[in-house]
């Protein structure tokens, strides 16, 4: 039986007074496209750093392709490529030197053909001999992706790779990553763009304050929503009293109302008709991942003690250095 691409068991990590991760359990199967979502300070980057050996867990086990990240670090690091969140580079070297050196760290010889291929796919060939300092932010980001791929790792982790990246590059990057996934690479992605996660990831874990608060296939997550929205533009009268409780947003005569099911459409429209208002425009809004995300995060908010939440939201910006 092939081992899971990533296996995380009961991982705890504390930074000073802040419990960054409190008992994370996750498994990612080989070949999956997996999303790791959560607000800032949820512990996504800490978890990735533990996979990569940049941070050490206080307790628990982490394996990449069956290799323990501490005991068999050489094997686990060979199996993993990480694209870091921050735009880091070595100002002394050109793009090609950077990639050659990175490949050498993995003990690879004669890797030039693959390096050329990676540069070609990421549109870096024209900049191969340019110094890293002279590249634009988007180009530097591509070099980071290339660096993560020089040793052909079966598991690739991308930590917010599209933060601050223009639309064209973002689409090119996703096309490339999708291709890698089709070729059998396991992909783990964190992003704040939930539409991206919805479009790309087959399965998603949501993290909040160091805990997994949701873990399911993307389609199950999207469908598990127990409400949908109807957007109405009305004229001739104000919104009837009976519907005020359903309002989610309202601006310039446009109301977005919450419905529990399609069966509620008719009674809502009846209320509007009876008030004498006229419907100028009507739109049904399908649930998307963003609604689910907001709903799950709010649910979690209700569940916790207020004190704890206040303490951690105050502490987290200080206590979560990304390096």
């Amino acid at each position, binding site marked *: 039986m092939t081992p899971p691409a990533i296996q995380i068991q009961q991982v705890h990590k504390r930074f000073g007074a802040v419990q960054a991760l409190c008992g994370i359990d996750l498994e990612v199967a080989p070949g999956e496209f997996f999303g790791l979502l959560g607000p800032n300070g949820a512990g996504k980057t800490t978890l990735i750093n533990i996979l990569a050996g940049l*941070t050490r867990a206080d307790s628990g086990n982490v394996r990449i392709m069956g290799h323990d990240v501490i005991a068999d670090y050489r094997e686990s*690091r060979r199996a993993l490529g990480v694209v870091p969140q921050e735009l880091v580079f*070595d100002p*002394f070297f050109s793009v090609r030197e950077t990639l050659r050196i*990175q490949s050498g760290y993995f003990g690879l010889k004669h890797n030039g053909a693959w390096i050329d291929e990676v540069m070609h796919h990421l549109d870096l060939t024209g900049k191969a001999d340019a110094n890293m300092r002279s590249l634009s932010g988007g180009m530097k980001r591509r070099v980071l992706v290339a*660096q993560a791929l020089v040793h052909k790792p079966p598991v690739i982790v991308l930590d917010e790779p599209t933060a601050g990246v223009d639309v064209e590059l973002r689409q090119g990057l996703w096309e490339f990553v999708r291709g890698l996934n089709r070729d059998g690479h396991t992909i783990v992605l964190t992003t704040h763009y939930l539409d991206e996660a919805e479009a790309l990831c087959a399965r998603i874990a949501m993290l909040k304050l160091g805990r997994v608060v949701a873990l399911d296939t993307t389609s199950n997550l999207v469908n598990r929503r127990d409400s949908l929205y109807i957007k109405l533009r009305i004229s001739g009268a104000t919104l009837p009293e009976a519907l005020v409780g359903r309002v989610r947003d309202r601006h310039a005569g446009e109301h977005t109302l919450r419905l529990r099911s399609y069966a509620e459409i008719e009674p809502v429209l009846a209320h509007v008709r009876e008030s004498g208002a006229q419907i100028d425009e009507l739109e049904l809004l399908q649930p998307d991942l963003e609604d689910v995300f907001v709903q799950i995060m709010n649910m979690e908010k209700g569940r916790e003690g207020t004190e704890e939440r206040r303490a951690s939201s105050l502490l987290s910006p200080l206590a979560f250095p990304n390096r």
Partner: protein
Amino acid sequence: MSGFGTLLYKELLRFWKVAFQTIAGPVLTTLLYLLIFSHVMQGQAPVYGAVPYSAFLVPGLVMMAVLQNAFANSSSSLIQSKITGNVIFILLPPLSYWDFFAAYVLASVVRGVVVGAGVLLVSLGFVDLSFEHPLWILAFTLCGSAVLGTLGLIAGIWSEKFDQIAAFQSFIIMPLTFLSGVFYSIHSLPQFWQDLSRFNPFFYMIDGFRFGFFGASDINPALGLAVSTACLLMLAAFTLALLKRGYKLRH
């Protein structure tokens, strides 16, 4: 190339790419010391018998350049990587802590030797030097630069900002090198300062290095090499322990 070989190559390439700053600059500074001190001090400071002051000074300055540059290489390379964040490029691959240690220290040795050789070559144009015991010269060069390369690595691991590296350099490395008998024979000092100098490990390195040129020294070079080697082994063990734990590198 192996992971270790690549890291060594990268460290060498790093200082080579900024050779004006890392090689030419230090060579020039050291030659200025030579010019000024040999002019001012000629005949003022008693040294070994018939050895003229400028000849006495050159090995001291060469070794000082070797030591300071070995320290500067590993410390500034690592702190730059930490501050810019690109240290992750060497933390993500399967490099062992031995690879890490050996590559940084060896690159520092090479930088120290290159700068020292540069100073020596140019000085030979002005000063007549003998090379009585070349093997002692080599032994002290390698051992001394390795000690300082290791110290630089410790400073780089421990520091979180440039300021702390600068403090390490100004308050520990500079005083210890300047007060190690580069410019004088410790026998010219009052007894108290002579005794104190014996607690300065850099004194043994400079003194032993000088023995290789003149066959004369303040203390027995075998003792000097023993002290230097003991320093190297202790510092190396300490640094390897830090790297193994991931101290301030892997959180």
